[in-house]
């Protein structure tokens, strides 16, 4: 759905956050984003109001995300805004050397990455290592092309090294954790951009 949304957004959303707004609020959000982007009425007062509105909705989204609360409803100026959290379903399942492919239908607690990227989340608790041993070159760098099955990082728990491998051919677009940092279950590790067709669900 995010990809579809992205197309619908026609460049209207200038950030992931705004894309989410569109996803969450549909028409209402579109109207106000148009206002913000100046595609609506070019009336200073009007767009000012919409700016305030957008900020308020964004604030609500933030509150829901940060608090982990289920739902917040605010009613004012003839507009009723309800922000409901996505159900907290894990995107990844733990395994020895797993790769977590976020399925949009089971979006995790983190904000889904934009632009068709596939997020790799940690299947376990442990220390994150970008290279097989201290001083050795990293398994991958941002911009690298990786093949399905290629090791992305090592997660160490109880002195055991667990390799996390790519499950598809992709370009590494982001690395979210510093070398040797601890990670918890479900924490975003990498954003991968598939170089072929998007992965099938399952």
């Amino acid at each position, binding site marked *: 759905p995010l990809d579809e949304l992205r197309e619908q957004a026609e460049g209207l959303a200038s950030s992931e956050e705004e894309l989410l707004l569109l996803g969450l609020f549909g028409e209402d959000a579109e109207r106000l984003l148009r206002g913000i982007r100046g595609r609506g009425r070019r009336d200073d007062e009007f767009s000012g109001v919409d700016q305030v509105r957008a900020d308020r909705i964004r604030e609500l989204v933030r509150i829901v995300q940060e608090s982990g609360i289920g739902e917040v409803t605010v009613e004012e100026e003839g507009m009723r805004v309800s922000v409901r959290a996505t159900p907290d379903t894990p995107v990844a399942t733990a395994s020895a050397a797993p790769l977590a492919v976020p399925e949009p239908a089971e979006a995790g607690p983190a904000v889904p990455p934009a632009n068709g990227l596939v997020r790799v989340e940690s299947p376990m*608790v442990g220390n994150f290592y970008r290279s097989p041993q201290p001083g050795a070159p990293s398994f991958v760098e941002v911009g690298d092309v990786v093949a399905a099955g290629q090791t992305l990082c090592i997660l160490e728990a*109880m002195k055991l090294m667990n390799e996390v491998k790519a499950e598809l051919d992709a370009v590494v677009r982001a690395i979210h954790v510093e070398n040797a940092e601890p990670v918890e279950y479900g*924490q975003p590790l990498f954003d991968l951009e598939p170089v072929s067709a998007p992965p099938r669900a399952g």
Partner: protein
Amino acid sequence: MFGRVLVANRGEIAVRVIRALHELGVEAVAVYSTADADALHVRLADRAVRIGPPAVGESYLNIPSIVAAATTTGCEAVHPGYGFLSENAEFVRMCEANDLVFIGPSAHVMERMGDKALAKAEMRAAGVPLVPGTEGAASLAEARAAAEELGFPVLLKAAAGGGGRGMRLVHGPGELHDAYDRASAEAHAAFGDGTLYVEKAITPARHVEIQVMCDNHGGVLTCGERECSIQRRHQKLIEETPSPALDAELREAMESAAERACRHISYRNAGTFEFLVGPDGSFSFIELNTRLQVEHPVTEAVTGLDLVRLQVRVAAGEPLPLTGRAPREGHAIEIRINAEDPSRGFAPAPGRIERFRPPLGPGVRTDTFVEDGVTISPYYDSLIAKVVIRDETRAQAIDRARRALRELEIVGVPTTRDAAYQILGSEEFRSGDYSTSFIDEAGSRLPALSGAVE
């Protein structure tokens, strides 16, 4: 003392342990599954690590993730609570291998006490009375011979088991074959091991347990008994101390037996010796629970001790501040409030708790992880609160307990509150003269329990 400790549990016991750590000035690190992201133990802890999805096998039983949660957050020790990994010797070894102090006994002792045959052998050697029966596994033929010698009724029990699974009461020789096959199959299904042994059935029996606390320097403290005979299918509902069945002499005999056993096996940290007390005042060892018990607060209520803080302190190497017999005063009763539907055979009834008001005021302690809006997850057990009453005498404690249960408000899920209220008000309970068959015998007369008796 440790600077930071991981609490490898959830629910009310995680909250309980975090409170103890904070009172000791120790930082608490919680672990949680994605189902528990908003849980009270996560909020109370100084830090929390998400360890896996809701299924316990991938979260609260996930040894690598839990050990890594401790090591990556700089914890020096791990408190296992009860259930989950608390009696898992492999977990204890993994903690030790990762330089984490496991707050409990050694893996070696835990393992031996988890093997019922080995445990009994140790107890026999320490001079602790056992239930008469086969010394170890019995084939069907051996079981038959033993039963004839012991006299019916006898109990068939799973060598690997616990919690009543793989157990059968056999009233006469005609029932033995069938009961043996079923118990063995049940044991195999539950524990992967169908081995059975035979015990004399003590009936009517009372389930009475002795709390012990041992330091690393040979100090042993016994904290008296807990009477746990109010059970429904081997699940305790109400516990009290002192037991109405014990006089000072029997109590001392049981406590000194527990102390002897602790010394014999070099026990460390908190432990509970479970005994059956027969109508003749004899007592027989059943098992040693090598961990904190759900019902530990009744002991705290009459001794004034904080058993969890003591656990942490002795694990940190401190000697016990007192040894021998802990002084006690007054009477205490614990009522377990479970999210269970009495009208549907006490089936677990997970759901959202719309409103929760704990009882307050004098002599009432409530341990819970519940507040308004909390969801009782089907993934975990149904215990939602423990109401612990302390008063000067048993009669006063019962009246206070009933006052407290009337005050307790839980809206959203059916609970065992009313069942407990009726039990406390029954003549049998008030008389103190009850046994483990109380629910079966009296249950049909108590409206809230009518669904509990099959």
